[in-house]
């Protein structure tokens, strides 16, 4: 498998975040090349590249771009830097280590799609990263890369940072736009999709930070080369963020179709405790959990879907056999209950119900049939709501109960948590964290 580094090649270099360093490594060369290409030609390369969204859903990026109606202006770009899905911590490192790569991706995308105004929506809890973006933007404006002209070409482009203020739901694309318009983050009914009716009612493309950071490489090396790094309908590499009970947690850039077991057992050195892997959440907390004996799978979007789960945001959470699955599910359900925006009844009412039933079982007060009741609740939320948070809240419940039924039954039979005080397992520390090949 290839070792090509698309996203992390410059991480760890001295001053890698500065314009000078980026330019010394050939930065903004792809933008220069793009400016000499016909705009549809750039979109075509992105289509050929098989780049798929890294924000969670894995939607084909080039295809999404073609959904923009031909003759409505203005159009906008929203860059999703909300990064709030539990287990996900990758976009921030792109911003910290190589913000100009993201800006170049944004500039190329805007040029290709005839967009003159872009916003980077970054979660409020990332002040340092927001400042890093502001700094990079100031450098790029100063150098005449963006602004009234795009590297000297008659194409004006403004890019602004917009900070959120603490709400997971604002990572959902339509909630993000509502929030950017100065409102609370209530997801919108779809269709219409943002590409048709988005920010301020205008056609809007929304992409994740990592998705757009790939664009300069695609333009530079061609879509076919990017596609060749991956497999099937998924091109390129991805940033997998591994956390939990592993020896070396951190960010690993690997081909999109890398093997999950290999990532955990070889790259991350297996569990820190040396105990067997009990469970793996493969793509952020909303992705269905896998049992330790099910992790020999490709992380590629379609392959892992066939295995009943998803690689979502690339956030892999590993748990060894000292961890109580009911405890973990309680915490996950609490998260979704906290973060439900409250617009739809199944989600607003159902998520706290699932949380309290889970807590009840965890504390030994469950009765026979409670595990099935939990499943039943989940089945009545997913698919019945305005946005995918309803599904995100249901999938962990459905999978945890099915795959770790024994943990649930034991709590109910023994009237206590069999793991007792140590329900979170043998504690790990992350002193060995590896971020994109570097010791963090």
């Amino acid at each position, binding site marked *: 498998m290839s070792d090509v580094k698309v996203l992390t090649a410059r991480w760890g270099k001295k001053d890698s975040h500065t314009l000078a360093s980026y330019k010394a490594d050939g930065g903004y060369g792809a933008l220069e090349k793009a400016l000499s290409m016909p705009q549809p030609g750039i979109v075509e390369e992105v289509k050929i590249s098989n780049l798929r969204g890294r924000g969670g859903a894995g939607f084909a990026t080039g295809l999404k771009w073609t959904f923009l109606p031909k003759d409505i202006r203005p159009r906008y770009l929203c860059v999703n830097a909300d990064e*709030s899905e539990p287990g996900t911590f990758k976009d921030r490192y792109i911003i910290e280590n190589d913000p100009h790569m993201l800006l170049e991706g944004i500039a190329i995308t805007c040029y290709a799609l005839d967009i003159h*105004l872009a916003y980077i929506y970054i979660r409020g809890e990332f002040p340092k990263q927001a400042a890093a973006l502001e700094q990079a933007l100031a450098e790029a404006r100063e150098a005449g890369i963006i602004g009234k002209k795009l590297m000297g070409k008659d194409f004006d482009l403004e890019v602004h940072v917009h900070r959120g203020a603490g709400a997971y739901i604002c990572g959902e694309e339509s909630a993000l736009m509502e929030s950017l318009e*100065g409102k609370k983050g209530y997801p919108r009914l779809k269709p219409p999709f943002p590409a048709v009716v988005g920010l301020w009612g205008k056609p809007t493309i929304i992409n994740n930070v990592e998705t757009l950071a790939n664009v300069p490489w695609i333009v530079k090396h061609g879509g076919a080369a990017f596609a060749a790094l991956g497999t099937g309908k998924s091109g390129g590499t991805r940033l997998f963020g591994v956390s939990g009970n592993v020896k070396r947690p951190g960010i690993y850039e690997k081909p999109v179709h890398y093997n999950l077991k290999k990532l955990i057992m070889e790259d991350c050195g297996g569990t820190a405790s040396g105990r067997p892997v009990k469970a793996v959440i493969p793509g952020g*907390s909303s992705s269905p959990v896998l049992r330790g004996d099910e992790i020999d799978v490709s992380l590629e979007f379609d392959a892992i879907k066939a295995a009943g789960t998803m690689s979502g945001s690339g956030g892999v959470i590993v748990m060894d056999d000292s961890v109580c699955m009911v405890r973990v599910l309680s915490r996950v359900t609490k998260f979704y209950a906290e973060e439900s925006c409250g617009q739809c009844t199944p989600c607003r009412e159902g998520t706290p119900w699932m949380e309290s039933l889970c807590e009840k079982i965890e504390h030994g007060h469950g009765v026979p049939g409670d595990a099935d009741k939990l499943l039943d609740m989940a089945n009545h939320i997913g698919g019945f709501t305005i946005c995918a948070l309803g599904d995100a809240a249901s999938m962990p419940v459905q999978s945890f109960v099915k795959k770790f039924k024994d943990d649930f039954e034991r709590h109910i039979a023994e009237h206590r948590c069999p793991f007792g005080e140590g329900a979170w397992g043998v504690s790990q520390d992350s002193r060995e964290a590896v971020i994109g090949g570097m010791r963090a």
Partner: protein
Amino acid sequence: MPPHDPTKPGDWKDLPKDQVARFDAALAPVLQRYPPDKKEAAMIPALRIGQEIFGHAGTAVQQLCAERLGTSPARAEEVATFYVMFHTHPTGKHLLEICTNVSCCLAGADRMFEQLKRRLGVENGGTTKDGRITLREVECLGSCGTAPAVLVDEKVMEERVSPQKLETILGGLQ
């Protein structure tokens, strides 16, 4: 915000004039980021600036933001109460927020949170008697690979927080 009782609904016109001037000065460049007819988009930045200058984003600050952005106070209130980083009431001098989501708990955050509550004598969301520290449990902070994570004063992300490191952090919050 001394002359005015921040827990009571107030009028923005009662806010100290010099602070309002600082607010306006800080807001002006931010407004440039949005199309001239979309000033309302600056609601989150405006409330954040207001919270920084006046200490919290209570009713008077919400009114000020609404007035400056040409929208209704109800709109400002809806935003101020939706996002967890806005505080409609005064908090302690420092805000200590600990992530207790899955990856952090797998690294010991739950026990650290319990210790903190005991050590500071507060429950989740509570403020120490001397008004120095407000403690809050928060959701994933995007630092799962370097867990556990603690956010200090909504500005500094502390990662790989061990109980010893936590002591140092607490010591710094004077």
